[in-house]
């Protein structure tokens, strides 16, 4: 993988400066970054969850939540309070330590993945050179928590759910990573900030038209999106939960705050994956292809923005994320769950070959031009 990266022409090598790096001390930026990541981690899923409630409700001729808070916006907060109050049941036959740890093992990687994702010009906690690699690696650890929960519950439905999740992860991790590699090949960097910058500078072959990667890599985007849905166990790929077959899959035995942690992981995963897709394919915080944000001068209008430019960039980024979350909800409402064998068949017979084809095409194009 490193070979691919170094062989490409990297326009961006230096690590970008985060706007959270204030002052010379070590502790202040650290606290600011912690607050930033935790804030996104807890607020993002709430917003995504509210969007899901409302959009799903309207698509099903309902209203969704209306009572808690203005227009029901505080519904998920109320749900959270309820979950905290609930009794924390642990089955007597369960492997208690593993059972108790599993939700945390699922939750923490989802939080860590947010560390490197840029939400605007300079708005990120950390710009790792291996950012893309890090995000994919961290988000894959989540499934370990799912497997642990399914195994330790001492319940056959939980076990089925956990194993399905494991099988699903292996099957869809491959196309997901292959699609992401194609982006890294085209951008010539694994840094997420660098990928955004590469998109700002990418011109259609021989012309001066700026394009986001979603156009040249439409196939890759499709593969990434479907694989991300499957990774997150979102309908129509929610076999690990499969509430009509497996009671509630690996979450069957969980209640109270632990159950809430699993749910939080799922919605945080939605936000993370959507953010990743925006960064990889949809031009990050750019308003339109080739249009620099107002107030931004350096580096193609991507950095050193004023307050308005930064805020606008963050707004654009969040808007794109919510749009993708909405599409995920939309698919959930429109499609029924696939069968387990269909899921595996699609992964190995359709997605993996297509992802390989996509990678080959991108690599050839990169070498030719």
């Amino acid at each position, binding site marked *: 993988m490193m070979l691919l990266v170094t062989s490409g022409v990297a326009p961006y090598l230096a690590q970008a400066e985060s706007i959270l790096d204030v002052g010379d001390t070590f502790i202040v930026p650290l606290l600011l970054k912690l607050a930033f990541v935790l804030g996104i981690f807890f607020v993002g899923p709430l917003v995504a969850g509210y969007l899901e409630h409302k*959009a799903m*409700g*309207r*698509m*099903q*001729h*309902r*209203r969704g939540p*209306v009572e808690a808070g203005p227009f029901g916006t505080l519904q998920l907060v109320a749900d959270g309070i309820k979950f905290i109050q609930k009794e924390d049941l642990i089955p007597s036959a369960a492997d208690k330590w593993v059972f108790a740890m599993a939700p945390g093992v699922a939750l923490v990687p989802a939080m860590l993945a947010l560390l490197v994702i840029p939400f605007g010009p300079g708005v990120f906690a950390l710009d790792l050179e291996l950012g893309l690699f890090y995000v994919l690696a961290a988000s894959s650890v989540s499934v370990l928590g799912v497997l642990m929960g399914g195994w330790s519950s001492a319940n056959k439905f939980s076990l089925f759910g956990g194993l399905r999740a494991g099988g699903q992860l292996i099957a869809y991790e491959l196309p997901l990573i292959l699609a992401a590699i194609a982006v890294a090949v085209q951008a010539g960097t694994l840094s997420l900030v660098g990928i955004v910058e590469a998109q700002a500078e990418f011109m259609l072959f021989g012309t001066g038209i700026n394009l986001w990667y979603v156009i040249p890599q439409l196939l890759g985007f499709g593969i990434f999106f479907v694989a991300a849905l499957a990774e997150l166990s979102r309908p129509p790929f929610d076999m690990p939960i499969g509430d009509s077959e497996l009671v509630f899959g690996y979450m069957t035995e969980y209640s109270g705050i632990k159950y809430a942690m699993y749910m939080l992981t799922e919605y945080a995963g939605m936000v993370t994956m959507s953010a990743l897709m925006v960064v990889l394919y949809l031009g990050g915080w750019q308003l339109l292809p080739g249009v620099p944000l107002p107030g931004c001068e350096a580096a193609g209008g991507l950095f050193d923005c004023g307050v308005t430019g930064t805020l606008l960039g963050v707004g654009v980024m969040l808007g794109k994320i919510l749009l993708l979350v909405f599409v995920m909800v*939309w*698919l959930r*409402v*429109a*499609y029924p769950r696939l069968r387990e064998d269909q899921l595996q068949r699609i992964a190995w017979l359709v997605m993996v070959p297509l992802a390989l084809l996509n990678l080959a095409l991108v690599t050839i194009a990169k070498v030719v031009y």
Partner: protein
Amino acid sequence: MAPSAPPGIGLLKGLGVTIKHLFQRPSTLMYPHERDVLAPRTRGVIALMDENCTVCMLCSRECPDWCIYIESHKETVPPAKEGGRARTRNVLDRFAIDFSLCMYCGICVEVCPFDALWWSPEFEYSEYEMGSLLHEMDKLREWADTVPPPPPLDEGAVLPAEVSDALAKVEKERELAAAKELEAKQAAEAPAETAGDAPKKGKAAEPEIHVKAGEIDQEAFDRLIAEGKSERMARSKAKAAYVKKEKARLLAEAEAAGGDAEAESPAPKAAEVKVDAGEIDQETFDRLIAEGKPERMARAKAKAAYVKKEKARLRAEAESDTGEGTGADEPAEVPSELGASPEAARQALDADGAATDDDAAPEVAAEAATTEAPAARKLGDIHVEGAGEIDQEVFDQLVAEGKSERIARAKAKAAWVKKQKQAKLDEEGGA
């Protein structure tokens, strides 16, 4: 996916359907803030009219969930006639439906042969504890106040058996009355006898005063509402109060009139005004049709109007006859509700002026017929109106004995009715 369609088109169609619905109005009804209009015979809760229940146990046995609990005891009723056999009857002690088990199949309501169980549309009786869903008799009785009236019959429907039976009876009475009139005419040559007969008939009629119950006693109604009673209950009680008052008033008038009759000329008071109810009052009929009433109703009302007019005319004639001192010439009997003073009769007729059915006039005849009941009556034959009263003395005594308030009330009611009957019997005996 249809084989002709390109692959994947079905997936897009699915997305199209859902996005279309996103922009449509949700069909949610914000329930506690808004309320739906329920179907008229909604199955909300089961109401019990315990006075109808004979403890036949059919409902309890038919209930698929066995969630109706009935307890009763037997009581011996003294023989109705001298030397008769004492009878036993069941008295309901407990009737409970467990709504945590009930599946609202309605079999109990269907199967009850005595119309003791009814569906009420009330549905907001959820509880925090399952045990509270066991509704005992008093609660089931309260639901009965919320049962909507039965829907009207379809136009041209066959009348219910009890109504058509009553109508047939009335028809017979009328024929009988007609025959009597003929007889009376033949007996017109013996005026002294008729004059002697009349006051007696007037007297016999006294306890049988009948008042139409459409009106309510506003005073009683207000008082009950102030006491916090439900509007429905207050209305029904106020109605009863009105009937009672009206009866008392009419009775007093009748007595006064009776006294007059004895003193002066009794004949016209007891005269029978016979009106042929086949005719209709064309004027009324036309007016009602013009008002947009259906023809059937217009005809019925016009008939009633005709009968009323005709009666008034005949009565006036009879009165003028009396004025001339030749009252015995036309010794007709007035089949008014009172069978006594024409003034009271007119009032009684006014009271049922709103009645739309054609049996208004026949009823009058029926009432008149009962006045001719033989003087020697048994306790059981006497009908006492207004069983709403209770005998306070008996009630207090029973409560003091530790009986439940409900049972005490029921027994006190029975005691009151019995007393009342006895009093009437004595009165008649004395007369």
